[in-house]
């Protein structure tokens, strides 16, 4: 490994370090950059053992230089599993945060979103929203911290926020869209649920439509089949035919 980065000399805090004895004297840690990427994700996980795992990997890396490449090592497997879970949760956050508009007070429009992530990912994902929703002010509030953007600075905090009660009329248009873009002839409920796990449902404006859509699907398809093709075309069709 050519590229290495230096890490501060006693990285994990005392409480995090309890799995291993502290280093006996000052020494320099060298870890491959890939470890930092991995560890940054791992420590966002809600598993209480995450710091022990990250710390153990750090120690093992001092003697096992190629540890990270050993993708069937149990510690690496576990770390990748945590990383994957954090990645998935982050991805779902990007997908399922729903902004609702607040009354405008200044020049910029203002929005707020309530989201319930599985892991401690607010600070990790907030810059994504900053890059995307740059021209509006917004707050993302969650039980695991919040993020605030005002057009100049992005601030994040770890404190649990409270759920705001806001109504946004545009949600109705979105619900209309959701109900109509669904093709009843192609019902695949399992597929939908594996991608949109129920744990994220409670904050999505569209999901309470789903039970009805599923229930009525068969009937809609049957109605469609039973209805004979009409024998009369609309008037403009006849006019068009003549034009040719």
């Amino acid at each position, binding site marked *: 490994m050519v590229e290495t980065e230096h890490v501060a000399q006693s990285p994990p805090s005392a409480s995090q370090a309890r799995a291993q004895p502290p280093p006996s004297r000052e020494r320099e840690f060298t870890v491959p950059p890939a470890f930092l990427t991995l560890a940054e994700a791992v420590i966002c996980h809600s598993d209480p053992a995450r710091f022990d795992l990250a710390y153990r990997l750090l120690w093992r890396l001092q003697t096992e230089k190629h540890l990270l*490449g*050993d*993708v*069937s090592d149990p510690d690496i*497997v576990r770390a990748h599993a945590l990383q994957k879970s954090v990645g998935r949760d982050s*991805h779902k956050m*990007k*997908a*399922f*945060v*729903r*902004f*609702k*508009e607040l009354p405008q007070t200044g020049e910029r429009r203002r*929005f707020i979103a309530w989201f319930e992530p599985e892991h401690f990912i607010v600070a990790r994902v907030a810059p*994504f929203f*900053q*890059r*995307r*929703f*740059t*021209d509006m002010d917004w707050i993302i509030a969650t039980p695991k911290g919040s993020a605030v953007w005002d*057009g100049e600075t992005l601030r994040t905090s770890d404190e649990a926020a409270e759920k705001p009660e806001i109504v*946004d009329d*545009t*949600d109705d*248009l*979105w619900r*209309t*869209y*959701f109900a*109509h*873009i*669904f*093709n009843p*002839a*192609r*019902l*695949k*409920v*399992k*597929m*939908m649920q594996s*991608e949109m796990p129920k744990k994220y449902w409670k904050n*999505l404006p569209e999901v309470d439509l*789903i039970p009805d*859509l*599923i229930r009525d699907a068969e009937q809609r398809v*049957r109605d*469609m*089949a039973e*209805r004979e*093709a*009409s024998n*009369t*075309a*609309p008037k*403009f*069709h006849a006019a*068009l035919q003549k034009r040719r």
Partner: protein
Amino acid sequence: MKKSLRERLAVLSDAAKYDASCASSGTSKRDSSKSGGLGSTEGSGICHAYAPDGRCISLLKILMTNFCIYDCAYCINRSSSNVERARFTPDEVVWLTLEFYRRNYIEGLFLSSGIIRDSDYTMEQMVRIARDLRLKHNFRGYIHLKTIPEASAKLIEEAGLFADRLSINVELPTDAGVEKFAPQKHPANIRRSMGALKIKIDELSEPTHTRRRKRFVPAGQSTQMIIGAEPTSDATILKSSAGLYSNYSLRRVYYSAFSPIPDASKILPLIKPPLVREHRLYQADWLYRFYGFGMDEITAGKPDGMLELNIDPKLSWALSNRDRFPVDINRADKEMLLRVPGFGVKTVMSILMARKHRRLGLDDLGRLKVSIKKVKAFIEAAGWTPVSLIDRGDLRDMFAPPPEQLVLL
């Protein structure tokens, strides 16, 4: 009485739901941190919701209007259909896109349209929507325009300056099919438009010395064909796709199982959409694009040219090419590892990495989340040789679920 915006949204999203594509990935990476505007695209697209049909909702997929002067038999918007009609103004489409985007419902817009007045008039309005989003509103989200194939080259080119992706649908897998079911469309014109677009994309992606490359349809062009409206074999469909991929450098060919539509034309079969068949075609397409299979190889062992419905095409290929197995996971090259049923591209990359450290056994594969049960008949690993498994007559039964009939409605 004029319909409200909400009523028209209902009609015009209903009309768009038969289009298979909702992808928003593969475009250039960009965001609004410098421009201070709205929107970003960061590599892979995001599905913001899933409809009960299991499809990802990533874009606001609507028609500008479902009035149409054409009469394509498979289409709910054909002029002879009694479907409810509606129309958005360009400004309304722009407004909906931006407001939906701000609430994080969508990645952007996928706009198509019935043809009103003539092709150029319709295309002009669509281009205007894309232009206004980009230039007036500083919008950097995703835009996919379904181009009107007969529109002038100049308009299609202008669309390319604002859209991430353009699609021109071939509609049906064979020319004869298009002539029969879409009498006002001409396969030759569709191909001409696709060819012209390819040339333009190639030309503008050549870096020049003096200027920065112009952004021009960074997510390329795609197309869609309807499956099951007429009797074409999978072999013919896949051959036609292979041609489209190589002649026009398409990013994607979408297969859309013909879906019964309200007030269907009488010349079409009234069946449940052949969803399994559609799924197998996508799998075959995937093998072609990412696994190094030739389209002809995939259907080679099938006398009627149809993919098997009860097992996936990769397994099907392996079962008819048993002499190529077992594959030694510690020595085989990447190409052959990719052909093992049960190994994905990621698995293969992990195997190649991990085997530098030690000889891999079945337990190592287990840790890579491979289903041992599925793959073990096809591989050799440390401590494992499949004893004559490959010669077993019942091998197929081990994998195949009992065959299912496609139900007639």
